[in-house]
């Protein structure tokens, strides 16, 4: 089950189980997916239905084979069929449908193939309605490997290649779990433009199927041999639970519960509880629970081919973001996290997954919770362009205020509209990155790599005009992070507009991160 059989591939057949060169799948030829794919994609539902049907019909089957005299025709179609001697025909029809479905699944698996060339990754599928999906390697925004619980039982994994654009992802589901990591490495190597391809070779795995599965199940989510331990940032469970209890959403929830309780006792009815509180608790509670489960065993690590983010307890997921795919970064602190000194990091990226539910959080929340040291380390991983000498600027951007560290702040008159934060509200620039700092109560710092900024804007409304202020914008791809900063002196803002647009032009001209492995470049 573990080693896929690819027809017309004699070398593959000669290799012992598991001893496959990781480069085999990325050789520009068409390959098939894991044989268990149809089962994992929909067959499980089918088997469950069949099992249910058989258990329901058990009594009738026993009666059929051992000759039961008492069949009551009480409207049950099975009993009706048995009584009238038409059961063999019905069984034949069911068997025929079953065979047809199995053949269809098999054929659709046969025609579902993929290939990876130097330029593109292509997936073609479909029996009656053919479809071909192509993704250009230089537009890859990230490669995600998901191992759902059921797929792990079969040793299969889903590889999702995020390409820039809305729902433009190329999915390879399912692949052999052992090969998925190697294939990702190969795709990233091809995309990076590395001249000589160092073929990573997987060690031959001679263990049996069950032993392999067990070994994979108890293995840590992140292979310790994969990355140097000092480049790994982890989220501890205690901190994760604490962060969820101190989250703004939890706080809102508690306040609303208290309000509803007061209202109920005052009015003496439970109408508030039923119509207002129950749906709210379900919604917000669900959000918090998803946040928790999606952040278990969370780790961020630096690899030569980008930042690796992994998490999951039963369903494992890990994603590699190649260099230069992060369009903006935001460090922020919900108000209740100030006491323990925790922060959250979110990013904007060019691809959007259509995967449901809390995957949206996975896509954009890169650090669910961490202290200041974690934040600085993760920023170092996300923005390798920021030199170690700029750490003080970053620290000032996160917790500081005033003009320390080269920040240009709002003028005093901006206190009219920035009551507490006018001293903190400001921007700074370190080579290659623009920093926007704001908020004294809800503190946040937005960082935009200049090479990723799409355009620079400046706006002014009537209120700002009266105060001689302006607002600056750095436009990036859509996402949870909005890079803008209001309440700046009008002339300062115009100066920022002029210099930043020049900086962006030069950064765009010299940027080569889309071929991060090409010669003469160490991204």
């Amino acid at each position: 089950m573990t080693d896929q059989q690819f027809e017309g591939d004699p070398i593959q057949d000669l290799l012992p189980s598991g001893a496959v060169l990781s480069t085999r799948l990325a050789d520009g030829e068409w390959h098939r997916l894991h044989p268990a794919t149809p089962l994992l994609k929909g067959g499980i539902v089918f088997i469950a239905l069949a099992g249910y049907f058989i258990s329901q019909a058990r009594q009738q089957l026993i009666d059929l084979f051992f000759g039961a005299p008492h069949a009551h025709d009480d409207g049950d179609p099975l009993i009706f069929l048995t009584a009238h001697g038409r059961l063999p025909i019905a069984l034949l029809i069911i068997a025929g449908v079953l065979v047809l479905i199995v053949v269809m699944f098999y054929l659709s698996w046969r025609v579902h193939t993929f290939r990876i060339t130097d330029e593109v990754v292509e997936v073609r599928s479909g029996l009656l309605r053919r479809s071909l999906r192509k993704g250009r390697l230089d537009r890859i925004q990230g490669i995600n490997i998901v191992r759902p619980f059921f797929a792990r039982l079969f040793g299969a994994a889903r590889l999702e290649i995020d390409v820039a654009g809305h729902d433009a992802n190329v999915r390879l589901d399912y692949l052999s779990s052992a090969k998925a990591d190697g294939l990702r490495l190969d795709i990233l190597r091809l995309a990076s433009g590395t001249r000589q391809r160092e073929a990573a070779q997987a060690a031959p795995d001679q263990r049996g199927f069950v032993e392999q599965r067990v070994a994979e199940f108890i293995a840590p989510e992140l292979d310790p041999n994969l990355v140097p331990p000092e480049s790994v940032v982890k989220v501890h469970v205690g901190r994760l639970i604490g962060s969820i209890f101190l989250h703004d959403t939890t706080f809102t929830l508690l306040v609303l519960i208290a309000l509803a309780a007061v209202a109920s006792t005052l009015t003496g009815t439970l109408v508030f509880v039923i119509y207002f509180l129950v749906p709210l608790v379900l919604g917000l509670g669900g959000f918090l629970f998803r946040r928790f489960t999606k952040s278990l065993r969370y780790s961020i690590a630096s690899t030569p081919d980008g930042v690796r983010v992994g998490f999951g307890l039963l369903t494992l997921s890990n994603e590699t973001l190649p260099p230069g795919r992060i369009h903006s970064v935001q460090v922020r602190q919900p108000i209740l996290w100030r006491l323990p000194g925790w922060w959250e990091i979110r990013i904007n990226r060019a691809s959007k997954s259509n995967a449901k539910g809390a995957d949206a959080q996975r896509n954009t929340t890169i650090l669910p919770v961490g202290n200041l040291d974690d934040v600085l380390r993760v920023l170092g991983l996300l923005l390798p362009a920021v030199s170690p000498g700029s750490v003080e600027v970053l620290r000032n951007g996160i917790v500081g205020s005033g003009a320390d560290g080269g920040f240009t702040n709002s003028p005093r008159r901006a206190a009219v509209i920035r009551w507490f934060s006018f001293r903190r509200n400001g921007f700074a620039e370190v080579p290659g990155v623009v920093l926007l700092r704001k908020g004294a109560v809800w503190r946040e710092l937005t960082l935009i790599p200049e090479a990723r900024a799409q355009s620079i804007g400046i706006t002014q409304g009537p209120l700002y005009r009266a105060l001689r202020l302006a607002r600056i914008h750095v436009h990036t791809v859509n996402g949870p992070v909005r890079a803008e900063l209001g309440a700046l002196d009008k002339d300062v803002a115009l100066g920022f507009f002029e210099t930043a647009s020049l900086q962006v032009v030069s950064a765009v001209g010299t940027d080569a991160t889309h071929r991060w492995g090409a010669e003469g470049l160490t991204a």
Partner: protein
Amino acid sequence: MTNRLNLPGIEWRRVSPKYVWVDLSSSAVGALILLAASCLPAVISGFAAWWSLPIAVFVIVVLVLAFIPRRVRAIGFQLRDDDLLFRRGLLFQRFVSVPYGRMQLIDITRGPVSRIVGLSDLHFVTAAASSSVAIPGLPVAIAEELRDQLVALAETRRAGL
């Protein structure tokens, strides 16, 4: 007005004055619908006091329409060496600078009224929806010339996302 935003030393290219009619016609349609809707409370309830609502709406609408020529004159753009500058807005001013290499595509659209007066709108689309550089009211020939020029410039400065 020294508080206004302005970039010194920029010779702005302006859009066609005929665009005033396009903007007026589309704004007038919206204004008529708004006026009709504001009459409803008075008609339904029969209270004379409600007629103050459509009167207030009418005054605002007339003011907005009266400023349209000024607003159209406030639209400007300029092709600098490495980026496209764009400005619009009178009460709410907005300036954008887009490097040519950021172009994803250029879209030229023509509405029915624009077609009558021979104008078209040019959208410079980047990967960021918030860039939204839309230069309205360009004569057809100039819009197409500008499109070719921008595409050629973007070709020489191609960049990733």
